[in-house]
């Protein structure tokens, strides 16, 4: 536990100093990865914590992204950071509340399909109506600012993303320790028992779903502001699938797994796309990335975050989980 906290503190410390030691390309890359990490955190709350496999998370991300562009006051004056961010979070959260209130009446594979259907609906509304600018997307000419903070400057943008990721991580960590978070954990493990104990599980799941959507909206906001451009693919199922792969790669059930997974995925993608390493084969990067992920999931089914502990156990030949003394058969 102590090592985990140390690792997380070191990782965030390193991220804080990263712009000073890397070039503009590196800063830009890590900015993007941190946004994906925040996005992955939002899905981890649903999949890893509550056991709800949502396959439409990109819709909330995309709504957060589109809201900042569509709700900007004009093409010439900048919107205030806090107001535009609040709008993005609120819109994504409210949409998640609507989707969740219907989708949570289903379970298992049906839940996956219903969330996918709703996100595709949002996708086509943006894609096929003039309201969302169609396939071409929309440019954002003036980025939000507040006082001395101007998100048009890469350094400011980087700092704002870093703070967002840290805040999202700390918020989720605390949430999972709270009575609400423990109830979500119980729902994931044994929903029937939770009901028998006296929990109305639907409001809990709906609250988790809305919160998750709001967090995804926050990540979408950052993505739109950083790139200054939105297109319908931000709501597409490809992105929903990608973020699902990220949290599986990192390790479900651990919130730091979402961050580790986002970094691992994006860096692997960067590696396989590199023409310096792979030459002309780099254009087939999907193949390399896919095979690597299959190998990772096959050999590390519990995700990357459990690798250090497994390594230590192999090394010392004993179990580190002090609370799991075997006393009989396991159910």
């Amino acid at each position: 536990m102590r090592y985990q906290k140390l690792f997380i503190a070191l990782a965030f410390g390193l991220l804080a100093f990263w712009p000073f030691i890397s070039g503009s390309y590196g800063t830009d890359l890590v900015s993007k990865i941190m946004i994906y990490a925040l996005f992955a955190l939002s899905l981890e709350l649903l999949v890893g914590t509550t056991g709800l496999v949502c396959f439409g998370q990109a819709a909330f991300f995309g709504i957060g992204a589109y809201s900042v562009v569509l709700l900007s006051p004009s093409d010439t004056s900048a919107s205030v950071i806090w107001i535009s961010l609040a709008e993005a979070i609120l819109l994504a959260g409210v949409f998640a509340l609507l989707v969740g209130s219907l989708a949570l009446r289903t379970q298992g594979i049906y839940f996956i399909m219903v969330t996918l259907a709703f996100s595709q609906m949002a996708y086509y509304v943006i894609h096929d109506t003039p309201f969302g600018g169609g396939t071409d997307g929309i440019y954002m000419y003036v980025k939000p600012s507040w006082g001395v903070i101007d998100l048009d400057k890469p350094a400011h943008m980087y700092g704002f993303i870093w703070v967002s990721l840290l805040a999202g991580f700390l918020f989720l960590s605390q949430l999972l320790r709270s009575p609400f978070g423990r109830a979500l954990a119980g729902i994931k493990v044994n929903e029937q028992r939770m009901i028998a104990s006296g929990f109305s599980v639907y409001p809990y799941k709906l609250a988790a779903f809305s919160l998750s959507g709001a967090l995804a909206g926050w990540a979408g906001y950052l993505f739109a502001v950083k790139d200054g451009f939105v297109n319908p693919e931000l709501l597409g199922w490809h992105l929903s699938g990608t973020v699902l792969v990220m949290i599986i790669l990192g390790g479900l059930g651990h919130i730091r797994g979402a961050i580790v997974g986002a970094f691992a995925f994006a860096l692997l993608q960067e590696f396989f796309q590199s023409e310096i390493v792979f030459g002309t084969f780099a254009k087939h990067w999907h193949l390399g990335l896919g095979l690597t992920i299959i190998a990772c999931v096959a050999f590390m089914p519990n995700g990357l975050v459990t690798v250090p502990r497994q390594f230590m156990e192999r090394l010392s030949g004993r179990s580190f989980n002090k609370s799991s003394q075997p006393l009989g058969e396991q159910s």
Partner: protein
Amino acid sequence: MKTDILLSCKNLTRRWDGIIAVNDVSLQLERGSVHAVIGTNGAGKSTLINLLSGEVEPSSGRVELLGQDVSNWNQSRRARSGLGRSYQRNTIYPCFTVLENCRLSAQAQHQTPWSIWRDAQKDTTSLGIAREAAHQVGLDDLLECQAGFLSHGQKRQLEIAMCLSTSPKILLLDEPLAGMGAEETERMLNLLERLRANHAILLVEHDMDAVFRIAQRITVMVNGVVIASGTAEQVRTNSQVRTAYLGEHG
């Protein structure tokens, strides 16, 4: 106060595609009394518990909890009103510790989901209830043990402790003694005798010695129908029961 009726059902019936699992069953559970329901496998005992606890909706009939008609209440609302149940098959949270299994059950009666800045596992109210429940079933020494690693008998004890953690007034216990050793059975029966004073207990059990030892009333079910109901002595001497059920085992 010895005779107040905490839970009752009238003409409870449940059909599944042509099969009548529970047919026109009426019974009453009183404080200070253990009411055993016995019957062969498939007699509808577990379905009866599911109907009373609200896990399964009845095809017809009504359920009254503390004098109030709760037929339209869902399971969690009934549970919050004092109806606790245990399961025939262990339904614990295997990856949590014994203490957390009980604490989370206790949390159900004191829900504060909005207080997200509080640490649930430092909540003294639910921890106190959880420790007391674990103590009652004799799991004090295993509080920090992961529940999935308990022996079968210990899991049965935990199942009861989780039920007690919800501070119920009525206990619906589905075969709490199944698979327990002699010593564990003895401890559980002593516990039930102690709980009897302040609770109404419905006990579904196959261990006849245990049933005749602690039950004040016994209801015998065959194919979803109640064929006899009365005191232990009345049931023991009932000729219908002897041929239908007790005879097969005697």
